[in-house]
């Protein structure tokens, strides 16, 4: 059973489309983890690692500005200032005032992926009962929750606006998307830090393979949060069962895995847990000669990246580094989806591995057309 990627939607600071995900323009969008170790040079007779461990400029710098679809806001720095996203070109002038920022980003990205306009009726042949939604997010309600809590402490519940209150529940971006696009197979939100976007893809992949849906929007969305430098934004992949020969798709999702890497009481990764996770990831490369590779995680996860490279070095295939927005995980759960979209922008097999500081690992393989 092939699972095709038939649409991609990206709405993030400094990222306006697939072209912004790789190459020089992507530098501003966090293509590399600052301070990473850059082991490089792994692989078994293939191209090895390219680009890691050199010129690590990290986040910041200049973004692509308004050079993309023309539907973006005013951000020209790629740093996610408060005005980077203008909902009007995506969502129209009405109907989104009481939706949370993460919900707005998600609706915009999902409609981009599906090739639809927000608020339009579902297209002819739309089977709502076979259309599902999975959304990864970790920070989408933190800012709103803090604001609501302040209001309650100062004014009591009478100070709360019923119109915006549903947003206190972390599943609400996905639920609003399901309402908007008539998705009735399921609407599931996944919340592990950093990896939740890839977890959404894994959930969708499983559901499609098991016949619980025919189409799934695998998505991620984040909002800025108190005490965190995570950026807001969203990404969406439209996944469908079956080959798409008649309507060439950007690619397909071919596999994936999830693991948890434990730490010892002193806080160091347990070697046996790290090794087991890396071996599981390396198993995803079976049958390939060269695998384009993108790692996503904060600085503290560099040794996981090294363990994965070591596992591939021992058993192949060769890894070919592919710099893509999201490597430093500063887009939170969206980071992994940005990297998948980057890999789908070029032909051939690719692998994204996302890891959180607290030990979550998710890996997804794709094949670009």
């Amino acid at each position, binding site marked *: 059973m092939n699972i095709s990627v038939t649409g991609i939607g990206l709405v993030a600071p400094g990222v306006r489309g697939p072209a912004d995900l790789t190459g020089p323009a992507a530098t501003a969008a966090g293509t590399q983890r600052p301070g990473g170790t850059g082991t490089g040079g792994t692989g078994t007779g293939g191209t090895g690692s390219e680009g890691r461990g050199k010129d690590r400029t990290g986040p910041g710098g200049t973004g692509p500005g308004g050079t993309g679809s023309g539907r973006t806001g005013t951000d020209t720095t790629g740093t996610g200032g408060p005005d980077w996203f203008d909902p009007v070109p995506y969502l129209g002038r009405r109907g989104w005032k009481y939706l949370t920022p993460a919900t707005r980003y998600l609706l915009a990205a999902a409609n981009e992926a599906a090739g639809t306009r927000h608020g339009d009726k579902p297209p002819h042949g739309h089977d709502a009962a076979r259309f599902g939604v999975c959304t990864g997010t970790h920070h989408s309600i933190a800012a709103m929750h803090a604001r609501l809590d302040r209001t309650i402490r100062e004014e009591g519940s009478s100070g709360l606006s019923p119109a915006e209150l549903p947003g206190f529940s972390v599943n*609400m971006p996905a639920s609003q998307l399901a309402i908007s696009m008539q998705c009735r197979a399921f609407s599931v939100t996944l919340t592990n830090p950093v990896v939740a976007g890839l977890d959404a893809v894994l959930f969708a992949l499983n559901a499609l393979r098991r016949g619980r849906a025919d189409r799934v929007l695998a998505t991620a969305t984040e909002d800025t949060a108190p005490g965190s430098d995570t950026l807001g934004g969203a990404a969406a992949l439209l996944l469908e069962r079956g080959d798409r020969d008649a309507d060439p798709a950007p690619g397909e999702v071919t596999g994936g*895995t999830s693991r948890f890497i434990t730490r010892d009481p002193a806080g160091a990764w347990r070697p046996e847990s790290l090794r087991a996770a890396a071996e599981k990831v390396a198993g995803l490369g079976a049958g390939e000669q060269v695998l384009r590779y993108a790692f996503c995680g904060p600085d503290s996860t560099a040794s996981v990246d090294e363990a994965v490279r070591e596992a591939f070095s021992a058993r192949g295939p060769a890894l070919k580094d592919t710099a893509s927005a999201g490597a430093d995980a500063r887009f939170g759960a969206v980071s992994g989806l940005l990297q998948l979209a980057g890999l789908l922008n070029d032909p051939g097999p690719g692998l994204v591995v996302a890891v959180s500081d607290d030990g979550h690992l998710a890996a997804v393989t794709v094949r670009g057309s």
Partner: protein
Amino acid sequence: MPPVVITGLGAVSCLGDSVESLWEGLLRADGTPTPAPEDCGLDERPSVYRVRGPAQERSERAGRLYGRASGMAGHAVGEALADAGLGRDDLADAGLAVGTTLGDIDLAEAGAAPAATGTASFQVASAVAGAYGLGGPNQSLSTACSAGVYAVSWAAELIATGQADVVVACGTDSYSRVALASLDRFGLLDRTLCRPFDADRQGMVTGDGAAAVVLESAEHARRRGATPYAVLEGYGWSCDGHHPTAPEPSGEQLGRAVAGALAEASGPPGALVLHRAGIAVNDVVESDVIAAALGERVDRTPAFGIKAVIGHTAGAAGVFGCVAAALMLRHRTVPPNAHVSALDPGCPLEVPVDGPVPLTEPRVLVSATGFGGNNAALVLGAPS
């Protein structure tokens, strides 16, 4: 679907810190809530079914602070693993599926969120997996108040597809000032008591708690000589796609989830563990959907509303439903429904109130709904 069985149970509720205390409390049918904390921000403190004692206390490990939801989840998972006879050496490839709506939200509401790590409240899965060395697939799911049933069925998916032999499914949520005030603002709270089958019910009453079940492939359980409580016979999912907080009034989508679960089951259910929380508009939809699915068996299939004695535990509710269902199968008994002065005249289901009744068939249907119209249902059957 390859057979998946439940071999361990764990529970932390206002009835106590064990499955045994939960079952005793369900049979007594006398659990009641207490007033919300003084800093709840509401003039008249609503009632809350709160967990007390060490199982719900915050903790710190390896420099990271964990909140009440993580504490309760850790305790429930520990009980479930011990019950299943699984130790740390067995768990390197075991998975974890956590259902929670707000995670360790108490840390944020106390101003103690671990901002330095950039980690928000959703850290229960890492707290539990780290504590027990669960190194397999690990996901945290939120579908609002149906998250527990989604966690259990997702755990079964991981096993059925060969991604793990053992997966622990856990649901957990703790008291939240924001959640309580929001529900109050929506007018969804019964401020005194959860009485889901009573004609005068006024809404839901929130509750703390965590529940856990150990799922494994039947073959894995057989090889190690484990005695299952139950077989997970089937499950169904659906989404209303209708309204952020109100159910789709026809119940068509919930009906699809229930029908999907029943279609995969080996026979009709002998009891029902309902989502029923005391919110009339939701209760009516659920009861009518399930009555229609049961057909002529409706008047001999006892229904049970667990929230009357432990409150609405949000992301934990569905796992509590599964623990209760597994215990019903083990004891062949359906507990009585609590706090019913006058039975809701619109309820078409059989509702025992005078005492426990026998389980009529060796299967129990568990149903769950949540904000956003997230529906799920599953059927647990007695092991052969």
